[in-house]
């Protein structure tokens, strides 16, 4: 696995990776309307990244992206998530308040004619934050474990 797999696998994964990516992003974006959400879509995208990892081998992938960048990305997603909760504390005076719904800020505002759009307030934003977090997190786990094991094999060889 250290050297990656055959050319067929690499080509197929190259072709199918964007589709997986788009499908996962679709699931994340429609989390409040259709089945799915940040975690599910993030898992889909992370599995796509894991496919690339399996096809090209962990050493090549580690050369492309380090796990510390992934952990930075993940903590950014987590900070965005908890930051939205703190914004609820600031705007809605309650921690985790869905401050875009029913507060007449932007949505649910008859004057703007946006009252009957089911935008779910901050839920899509939270979905994106969690999606970013799950993508980075799961891919970091898979990458680190795969890299550690392959490095061990390379040492024994």
């Amino acid at each position, binding site marked *: 696995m250290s050297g990656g797999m055959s050319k067929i696998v690499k080509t197929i994964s190259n072709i199918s990776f964007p589709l997986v990516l788009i499908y996962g992003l679709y699931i994340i974006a429609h989390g409040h*309307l*259709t*089945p799915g*959400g940040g*975690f599910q879509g993030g898992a889909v995208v992370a599995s796509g990244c894991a496919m690339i990892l399996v096809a090209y081998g962990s050493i090549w992938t580690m050369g492309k992206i380090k796990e510390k960048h992934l952990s930075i990305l993940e903590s950014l997603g987590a900070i965005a998530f908890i930051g939205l909760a703190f914004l609820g504390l600031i705007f809605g005076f309650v921690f985790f308040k869905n401050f875009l719904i029913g507060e007449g800020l932007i949505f649910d505002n008859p004057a703007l004619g946006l009252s009957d759009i089911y935008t779910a307030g901050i839920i899509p934003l939270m979905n994106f934050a969690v999606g970013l977090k799950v993508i980075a997190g*799961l891919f970091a*786990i898979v990458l*680190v*474990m795969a890299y*550690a*094991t392959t490095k*061990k094999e390379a040492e024994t060889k």
Partner: protein
Amino acid sequence: MIYNIPFIAVAALVLIGLYAVVFKRNLIKIVIGITLIESGVNLFLITLAYRQDSTAPIWHGITASSNNVPFMSLPVPHALTLTSIVIGVAVLALMLSLVIHIYRHYGTLNVNKLGGDEE
């Protein structure tokens, strides 16, 4: 009574997992047992959510005011199952990485051949 077959399946899953943890000697099998227990608990939560001839709790294109509102299954257990699945993934990742380290140190996965806790 006979309708409780899913719950009996839940009990069976939990018990199989517990059996694997108690009576198996291989660390990987122990990990598999723990994940079996976890999937049993998740199955329990999901079966609690089901109501006879009910649809998924999604208001697609209808509102509470509109007529022919469908009979929906319970949404809370779905959310709990989602949470517990993600938690299970996290625990599994950590357990497997510890198993990798143990294999590096002791060169075996047999529980009896590990160091034990008595010096």
